[in-house]
């Protein structure tokens, strides 16, 4: 039988060459061993590194980038300057990576101390034992005090099963931006009901323009917003059961479907998809060319971050000596039937960023201290300055009341509308329940299917989706349910 050196083709090499090869192999093995040892030592040295400046390090994971990242670094710098006990180290990661890395770090026993999320996963993560409730870190009184100071929407986003399971640090509010100049030029009134808004689509259609072809196009991805607008919800908190097939949900999907019926499902989808192809995904409400005074739509449902886009647009136009159309914002008007029965502000959907506190973090009290600093519970003036710089909506009335913040709002009436909306109890987040992410995906998918096929019955589709959600909820592990019961009773 041939020996291994022969098999490897080395057998025919002279002895000197073999020795030289062996020597190389030894050197490489030694170098590799040194490298592994070095990496191992570096890993071991990490714990010491955390105490370099005698303060305890708080590790924050977040997904912010671009202009927001600068503001986040500013908050961290301000906190670190003000602190003698803790020092925050922020780590930015893309959204998709952040979640997978969190699971792996938690499974490995070394999660961050603080993490920022904007997906409806707080309840699931709490049930999994991945994150702590605030009253597990600070006293129940202090947790209650934090909760009381939040806007209703921020409190809802942070609470599950009667406990504060995170701290909301910013609200994302959607409202209806519109091109006021274009409306005035056409002699059209600002719509007060959803029917009037729909009617404006017909009027824009009669103009026969290639752009805008539609005054407004609702997207199925905001299905939850529309359910709330139609005066309903997708979760019954009394029975703790989903109700994706509630009358409001059926009515809202029928309204979405009506767009496809009137204008053609394919045309509506194609027009909407083309918004994404605008250079740099610019705000489709903005005119694209210098000689235009209107963009792809007259109305657009979007968040407060678009205020920055409007400001930049005005500035760019002014720099070129061009006039800019006037823009304004209103809450998305509800259907007339809802308006007649309800004298309150219209409903809608609100989202936000929430700080959560992974179990096993080295310094959860430090993480809470930073969260309180961020939202202005320890210094509302600093929080106001940061919120102005970031164009963020604060989560506490105290920060909104700050003189600097009020001055900023006075200078920007559009942004002021968003801040006023943020305090509305009519705004509902995605229900903070187990399976909320699945619920949201399922509702959006159903809305998209119904909107793309006018022959489908919204009621039947929603009933099927509700059954699917029920099955999903039943499939959740019993151990998690029993854990939930235990935690709820704590």
């Amino acid at each position, binding site marked *: *039988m041939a*020996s*291994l050196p022969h098999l490897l083709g080395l057998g025919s090499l002279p002895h000197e060459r073999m020795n030289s090869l062996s020597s190389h192999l030894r050197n490489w093995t030694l170098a590799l061993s040194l490298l592994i040892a070095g990496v191992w030592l570096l890993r071991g040295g990490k714990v010491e590194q955390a105490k370099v400046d005698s303060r305890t390090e708080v590790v924050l994971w977040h997904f912010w980038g671009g202009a927001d990242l600068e503001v986040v670094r500013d908050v961290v710098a301000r906190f670190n300057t003000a602190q003698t006990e803790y020092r925050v180290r922020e780590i930015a990661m893309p959204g*998709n990576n952040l*979640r*997978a890395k969190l*699971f792996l770090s*938690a*499974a490995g026993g070394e999660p961050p101390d603080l993490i920022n999320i904007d997906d409806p996963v707080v309840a*699931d993560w709490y049930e*999994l*034992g*991945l994150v702590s409730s605030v009253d597990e870190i600070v006293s129940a009184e202090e947790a209650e005090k934090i909760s009381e100071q939040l806007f209703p929407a921020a409190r809802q986003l942070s609470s599950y099963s009667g406990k504060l399971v995170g701290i909301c640090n910013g609200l994302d509010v959607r409202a209806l931006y519109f091109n006021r100049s274009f409306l005035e030029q056409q002699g059209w009134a600002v719509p007060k009901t959803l029917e009037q808004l729909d009617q404006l689509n017909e009027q824009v259609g009669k103009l026969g323009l290639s752009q805008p072809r539609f005054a407004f196009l609702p997207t199925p991805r905001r299905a939850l917003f529309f359910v709330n607008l139609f005066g309903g919800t997708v979760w019954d908190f009394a029975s703790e059961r989903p109700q994706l097939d509630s009358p409001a949900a059926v009515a809202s999907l029928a309204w979405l479907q009506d767009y496809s019926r009137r204008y*053609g*499902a*394919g045309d509506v*989808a*194609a*027009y*909407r*998809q*083309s918004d*994404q*192809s605008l250079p740099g995904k610019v705000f489709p409400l903005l005119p694209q060319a210098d000689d235009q005074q209107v963009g792809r739509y007259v109305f657009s449902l979007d968040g407060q971050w678009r205020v920055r886009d409007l400001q930049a647009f005005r500035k760019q136009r002014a720099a070129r000596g061009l006039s800019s159309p006037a823009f304004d914002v209103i809450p998305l008007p509800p259907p007339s039937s809802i308006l007649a029965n309800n004298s309150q502000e219209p409903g809608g959907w609100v989202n936000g960023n929430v700080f959560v506190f992974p179990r096993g973090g080295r310094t959860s009290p430090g993480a809470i201290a930073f969260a309180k600093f961020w939202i202005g519970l320890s210094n509302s003036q600093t929080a106001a300055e940061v919120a102005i710089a970031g164009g963020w909506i604060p989560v506490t009335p105290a920060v909104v009341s700050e003189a600097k913040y009020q001055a900023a709002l006075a200078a920007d009436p559009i942004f002021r509308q968003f801040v006023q909306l943020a305090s509305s109890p009519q705004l509902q987040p995605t229900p903070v329940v187990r*399976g909320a*992410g*699945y619920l949201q*995906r399922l509702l*959006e*998918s*159903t809305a*998209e*299917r119904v909107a*793309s*096929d006018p*022959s489908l019955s919204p009621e039947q589709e929603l009933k*099927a989706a509700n*059954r*699917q959600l029920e*099955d*999903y909820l039943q*499939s*959740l*592990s*019993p*151990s*998690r349910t029993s854990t939930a019961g235990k935690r709820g009773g704590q």
Partner: protein
Amino acid sequence: MSSTGKFNRETLAGLAFASPWLVGFALLFAWPFAISLYWSFCHFDLLNPPQPAGLSNYLRLWNELRTGQGFGLALFNTIYTVLISVPLSILLGVVLATWLSYDVPGRGLLRSLIYLPAMIPVVAASVLWLWLLNPSDGWVNGMLSWIGLPPQNWLTQPRSALSPETARLAIQGSPEVAKLFGSKDGLILMTLWGVGNYVVIYLAALGDVPKSLYEAASLDGANAWRRWCHVTLPMLSPVILFQLVVGIIRGVQTFTSVYLLSEGTGQPAGSLLTVSLQLFLAAFEDLQVGYASAIAWCLFVILAGSTWLLFRTSSAWVHYRTNV
């Protein structure tokens, strides 16, 4: 030294040399493969120990298959794309390879151009195709308009070309039927772009076909078409079988492009929710690793079954050359 002792020593040395691979195989393949079977009978959320759950994950899969939701929808979407894209890729690959096997002008350049897309990373290719398939200013619709065909809603329309809904619209004479192609068709088009991989293998196989067979066929009076049907195709059939098996496995496992084209959700309306994406969402979005493992095992059984079926039927259509 006895031959047995030498054999043992050499075997040990051989195993030692192979140990990096063996350890990798055991830890990264065999162990996950085995443990995932156990997890498929458990509730497991990655963070807490798995809890035995009997057949509940499989019953859920069965229920979803029955109702056409979740796994049922994902399986339908996967089968649709694989059943169309794999045969089309093979057909296009064989045709292109046959063409390039002739002495056409610029053959080297054409071969490079056809293979070039296969070298582009799938992420870059997906982003490119997102733009190419844009309904308003994408090049694909631009070309369709140029030859007088209506633009298509490639990645925005859940309805696909070969679907009962399209058939219903066609029977009703609805103008909507002009928008024939949907998101799955867009994905298939993108898959065909990477046909260069197939072409290279077919070209190699074509070069291996003995000239004497063509000469014998010519002497028997066979024209070019008959030579292609009765010589080239049978001689390519082992490679076609290989491409069919590999193509089905790759097609079922397609993830990156689907994830990017559907923004990680399987949208529009779940029409791009493939089995691999459903598995990913279950495991890493919903943290239902037990259910995801059950999906993986179903997928394994389906792939193993289809591969077995292909091999069983191959004796009827695959021609293996024998040396006489």
